[in-house]
């Protein structure tokens, strides 16, 4: 176990390094950060002065070394917009994003798991058809449009929920729902197909022959075995949840790092962008590590290699 964990941690570290390297390269090799940060009216002298001041005249290797050295201790330089260390700006907004992603995950599990099970048990019935249509739609609707439609109905027409912000418990309902729909749909579809496959297995016949009731067979035998595949997908879905947060937070004016990312990109506050990418990369790799460990606990037959 310890050896496996060490190996996975090592891989995670490489992944985080890889992403930071990509971000650094895109910004410094494909683009010119100074040009992006200064207004178009800046004179050549201004540009040169800023280059010198920020150390952009050093060789690229030296710059990357400096960048990495800072990244290790979480120092990405100062944010232009907020005049604070970039990392502090990001960390301040991280809890809001985690709260939103957590709520969305909860919603997707609450809707996705029962829907998937019911759909599988009542295969080819009307209920199944309805659940399948809704889950297919859930994968096709752009999140930002769903968000706008919800705002139109529940904020503009009915005036039940606030359009934006994070002031009361009511504020999180629409953003969490918008963000969770895609994951809920994915879980439903996957769970249905897995349960159907498992229900054809011999051990289900054995359970039936033993005289077990339908509920026991479904929950104890079929669902338990379908769970490991759900976990794998969840690991990947968390990436799309945090990615989706970028859009959802913008639509609902949610004060998290997704909205901060969009604002910082449009304002060319690249120090903040680098810090966000770094934090996101670390969160993902950690979450995936946890998922891997859970996976082994649920399914001990999988060797930890």
């Amino acid at each position, binding site marked *: 176990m310890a050896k496996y964990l060490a190996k996975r941690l090592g*891989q995670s570290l*490489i*992944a985080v390094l*890889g*992403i930071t390297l*990509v*971000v650094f390269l*895109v*910004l410094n090799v*494909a*683009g010119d950060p100074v040009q*992006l940060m200064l207004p178009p009216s800046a004179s050549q002298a201004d540009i040169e002065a800023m280059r010198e001041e920020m150390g952009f005249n050093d060789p690229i290797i030296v710059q990357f070394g400096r960048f990495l050295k800072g990244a290790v201790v979480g120092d990405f330089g100062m944010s232009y917009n907020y005049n604070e260390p970039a990392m502090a700006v990001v960390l301040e907004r991280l809890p809001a994003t985690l709260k939103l992603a957590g709520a969305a995950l909860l919603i997707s599990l609450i809707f996705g798991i029962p829907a998937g099970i019911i759909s599988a048990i009542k295969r080819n019935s009307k209920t199944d058809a309805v659940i399948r249509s809704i889950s*297919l*739609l859930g*994968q*096709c*609707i*752009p*999140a*930002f*449009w769903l968000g*706008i*439609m919800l*705002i*139109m109905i529940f904020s*503009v027409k009915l005036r039940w929920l606030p359009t934006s912000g994070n002031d009361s418990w009511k504020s999180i309902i629409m953003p969490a729902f918008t963000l969770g729909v895609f994951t809920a749909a994915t879980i439903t579809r996957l769970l249905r*197909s897995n349960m159907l496959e498992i229900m054809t297995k011999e051990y289900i016949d054995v359970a039936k022959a033993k005289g077990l009731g339908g509920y026991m067979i479904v929950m104890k035998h079929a669902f338990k075995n379908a769970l490991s595949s759900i976990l794998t997908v969840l690991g*990947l879905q968390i*990436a*799309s949840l*945090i*990615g*989706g947060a*970028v*859009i959802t937070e*913008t639509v609902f004016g949610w004060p998290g790092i997704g909205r901060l*990312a*969009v604002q910082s*990109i*449009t304002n*060319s506050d690249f120090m903040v*962008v680098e810090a*966000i*990418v770094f934090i*996101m*990369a670390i969160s*993902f*790799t950690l979450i*995936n590590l946890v998922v891997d460990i859970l996976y082994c606990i649920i399914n001990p037959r999988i060797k930890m290699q």
Partner: protein
Amino acid sequence: MWNNLKESKTGILGLSIVLLVIVVAFTATIISPYDPVKQDIINKMKPPAWSEGGTWDHIFGTDQLGRDILSRLIYGSRVTLMVAFSGTILAGIVGVVMGAISGYYGGWIDSLIMRIVDIQLSFPFILLALFIAAVLGSGLQNIILIAGLSGWVRYARLVRGEILSIKEMEYIEAIRSLGGSNMRIIFRHILPNVISPVIVIATLEMAKIILMEASLSYLGLGVPIEIPTWGRMLSDSRVHLVTSPWMAILPGLAITLTVLGVNLLGDWLRDYLDPKLDF
């Protein structure tokens, strides 16, 4: 193939929607009632024909600058399709080549490519896409490039897996002993075997690319502002939700329908070409 399609109602629906969008995009200059960028401030924010105050001059109404929404929807389909097809093809080529190299040669190059795949799969691409769009600037080419970069990993994984199982087969050994080169083996004997799962993935990935392009346009980092796109129309509608809800409803419907069509077609193709495939 046609007989199988006839039996699948959802497959027919998917194909019809996709064909409709393609026809609309190709005939945009003919069927579009107005110039999609022509402003007409006197007639701004006219509701659609069926609601109160609407006229048949502008069936779907007009936007905040008096531009005809139907015409903008029609022209918007062009950007959607252009990005969807070019992005899918680019991603497919990059992914198949990388997967083939990875699976066929193995060793360190395989490890390297698979690490890159892992990194990309574990990271929300929209963030990198935003970042690349901001640094490189907006433009159709850049969006296609981003679409291509975002989707290649799935093909690479699939092709690698298929090649790993095929390359050990006896007929490959036979070709090798007859003096067949690596390139010949890969292109003539291995790749034709993976073409159908690649087509299935391409269709399902295309749906994702359409959603991504719309998201980037919505955030204002898509194609230049003067080109009408569905995502941009939606972001324009944001401040007019109370007075002109149709400005938000119609482009969203267009995106959802198109993605639905592509997904239905993809689901049918998967069942038809490769029922064992599961993703």
